[in-house]
């Protein structure tokens, strides 16, 4: 076990001495270089080549951006107006990894905007910035902005933006670009069509070319991003436009922000859906990315309890939609054969259609995905021959559906539904008991079993207002089984695109959103995930004092892939003794506690003894409750 000591935080070298030493070294190095160049020039043959060599001045001009000296004083730059527009969106935060393509906006955010609304969150990788904005948006219920450098920053961010796209989450992206690059450095940061780099997974991108249209284009990007099906949007902003002086007396009005109402299901179709659900003997509800807001959570609860229908959130439901310890949470038990399945924002209805068609039942789909044209990525799912498809936002449609079910229900409907609910509750109780029975196995195993890890955590946060800000993709169903997800914000959902590297920075983003509410954010992330951009994201949490308990579910491998290679090798008859090659993270095993300590975060680990986990959790949680991030490296069973 390793802990950070206070002495570690004290720099061993005085800052002024460090800077002085660095300057002296640099001066020495520079003189050596100059001297070397001079000697080389003296040694050159007298016959000059056909093409003149660049002079020092030429080289300097090409490698160093133009000096600002002599540039006209700009009293009121265009980037000030841009920041005024961003303020109209009520952004709390903007993720920034600095880049010279948006230095104008950067400066305006700090000095014109006062670094408030939005406040700069310094990130160490643009993918982390996009993932933080993604996790933040789901936890806060509103977008966060991320600011990126031309091409290089945008390409770094592209994976984070892709995940947000697949998860239907709005992220407000702004990328700076030098339209007229002036040096060898910023030429690669300029592009003929910057948005094209990520257009396949952006809901909209645009480049305002004049300041007087900037606000309306930004408003459009913001409102389109927030209209279901939601998604990330991108503004491309030229450096010259950022630097352009706003003439005295020129008015640049900012339009009023009006978010459009969300499309609801057509009345006749909703009436028909209600009729089928009222008449069903065994209805089943399957939500996907349903609860955009806490209202969606409440409405689903109302619907399920009105119908006394089970709610099956599926294995990798990306957003938490239903209380995980509710009597109706589940698929109704092994003997429950649904005759009507209602999909709510469920992108893939294929299994539901197969299930109901096999028994002569019907399927209803209420989904905003029907309003999406789809892009290059196949995340929009296959066409499915459901029996009733309603192209609308499910959360917005639920009030009218519930009302219509009430209106159509016979007076004595509640008697049959109560009996149905009781049977479902009994079946689910049996399942609950079996799940707890399963959790006992490997209780004292070393490394620690996943259910032991989650149980120990659950015991210590019972009195906290906690929120799981990571996904649960790699901990099976144990989080939902052992932690009572009884509120909308208890669980922030998976990444959307099933790509590794989301969980750690998105946890920081989710924690940032919960900070305002004083909640206790917890991320349980795989070691594979952490190793992408996790360490830098931890630094962001430390730097901005974002409370977050990060538990590394450290199984020292990419275990999902072991099985895939196993399957392939077995199918080809080539043996399985080498399938760990390329799939394990050991020899050496990274020490995540030391890594975290290096970034200024309280950390303990590796912890593989299950009896050492509870006290370590207690110490780490005390740090988080006091307002700082903490990390526990828990060496765990593979599954």
């Amino acid at each position, binding site marked *: 076990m390793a802990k950070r000591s206070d002495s570690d935080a004290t720099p061993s070298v005085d800052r002024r001495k460090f800077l002085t030493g660095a300057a002296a070294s640099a001066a020495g190095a520079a003189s050596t270089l100059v001297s070397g160049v001079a000697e080389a020039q003296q040694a050159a043959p007298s016959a000059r080549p056909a093409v003149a060599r660049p002079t020092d001045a030429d080289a300097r001009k090409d490698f160093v951006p133009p000096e600002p000296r002599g540039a006209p004083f700009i009293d009121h730059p265009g980037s000030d107006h841009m920041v005024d527009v961003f303020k109209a969106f009520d952004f709390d935060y903007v993720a920034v990894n600095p880049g010279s393509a948006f230095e104008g906006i950067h400066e305006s955010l700090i000095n014109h905007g006062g670094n408030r609304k939005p406040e700069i969150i310094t990130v160490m990788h643009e993918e982390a910035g996009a993932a933080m904005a993604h996790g933040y948006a789901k936890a806060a219920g509103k977008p966060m902005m991320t600011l990126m450098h031309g091409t290089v920053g945008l390409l770094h961010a592209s994976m984070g933006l892709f995940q947000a796209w697949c998860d239907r989450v709005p992220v407000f992206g702004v990328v700076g670009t030098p339209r007229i690059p002036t040096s060898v450095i910023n030429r690669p940061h300029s592009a003929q069509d910057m948005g094209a780099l990520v257009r396949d997974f952006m809901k909209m991108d645009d480049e305002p070319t004049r300041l007087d249209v900037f606000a309306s284009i930004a408003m459009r990007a913001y409102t389109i991003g927030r209209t279901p099906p939601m998604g990330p949007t991108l503004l491309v902003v030229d450096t010259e436009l950022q630097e352009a002086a706003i003439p005295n007396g020129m008015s640049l009005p900012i339009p009023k922000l009006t978010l459009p109402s969300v499309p609801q299901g057509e009345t006749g179709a909703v009436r028909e859906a209600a009729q089928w659900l009222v008449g069903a003997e065994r209805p089943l509800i399957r939500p996907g990315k349903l609860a955009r807001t806490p209202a969606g959570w409440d409405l689903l609860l109302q619907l399920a309890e009105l119908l006394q229908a089970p709610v099956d959130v599926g294995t990798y439901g990306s957003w938490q939609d239903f209380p995980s310890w509710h*009597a109706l949470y589940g698929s109704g038990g092994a003997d429950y054969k649904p005759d009507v399945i209602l999909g709510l924002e469920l992108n893939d209805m294929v299994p539901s259609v197969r299930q109901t068609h096999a028994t002569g039942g019907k399927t209803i789909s209420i989904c905003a995905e029907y309003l999406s044209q789809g892009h290059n990525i196949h995340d929009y799912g296959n066409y499915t021959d459901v029996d009733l498809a309603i192209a609308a936002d499910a959360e917005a449609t639920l009030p009218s559906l519930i009302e219509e079910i009430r209106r159509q229900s016979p007076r004595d409907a509640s008697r049959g539904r109560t009996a149905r609910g009781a049977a479902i509750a009994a079946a689910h109780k049996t399942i609950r008991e079996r799940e707890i029975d399963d959790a*006992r196995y*490997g209780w004292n195993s070393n490394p620690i079993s996943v259910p032991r890890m989650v149980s120990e955590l659950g015991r210590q946060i019972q009195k906290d207002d906690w929120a799981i800000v990571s996904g649960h993709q790699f901990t099976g169903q144990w989080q939902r089984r052992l932690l009572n997800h009884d509120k909308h914000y208890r669980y922030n959902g998976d990444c959307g695109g099933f790509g590794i590297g989301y969980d750690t920075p998105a946890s920081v983003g989710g924690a940032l959103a919960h900070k305002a509410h004083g909640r206790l954010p917890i991320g349980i992330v795989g070691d594979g995930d952490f190793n992408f951009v996790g360490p830098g994201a931890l630094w962001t949490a430390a730097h901005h004092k974002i409370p977050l308990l990060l538990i590394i579910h450290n199984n020292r491998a990419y275990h999902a892939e072991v*099985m895939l290679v196993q399957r392939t090798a077995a199918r080809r008859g080539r043996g399985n003794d080498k399938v760990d090659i390329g799939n394990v993270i050991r020899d050496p095993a990274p020490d995540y506690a030391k890594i975290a300590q290096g970034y200024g975060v309280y950390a303990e680990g590796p912890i593989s003894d299950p009896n050492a986990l509870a006290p370590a959790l207690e110490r780490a949680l005390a740090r988080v409750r006091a307002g700082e991030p903490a990390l526990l490296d828990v060496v765990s069973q593979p599954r």
Partner: protein
Amino acid sequence: MNMRKLLRSLLAPCVAASLLVAVAPSPAQQNAGATPVGDAERGRQLFSDTYNCYACHGFDAQTGERRLVPMNYPVEGFVTFVQHSPLPQMPSFPDASAQTLADIWTYLKTIPVDAPPLKDLPLLQDVLARKNQAASAR
């Protein structure tokens, strides 16, 4: 059909089929119905190093999907199941000999079950009680 029922239904015909596996009959098979004779130490190596079974089933074969301890199935059924897995998430291992799988099966039988009774686990007892309370509150 749940996993356990599916397994049972598949295992019944497979027991007979497993006897037709074109390899020399293993001691385990020769003693079908009695305690099979396998090499537990070789089985451990096969489980951990050769076939990397731990990746899905846990280092102690009882924490993953699915749990293999306690191993309640007969060796013949185990051999057939592993060689011709009917489950999409479980690869088939047709080249694994019956003797190899009998060794793994024997190793699995030697692993002590680490599942304290619920009455000795107040933490899980508390979770179950609170779960039942939350479910009945509706």
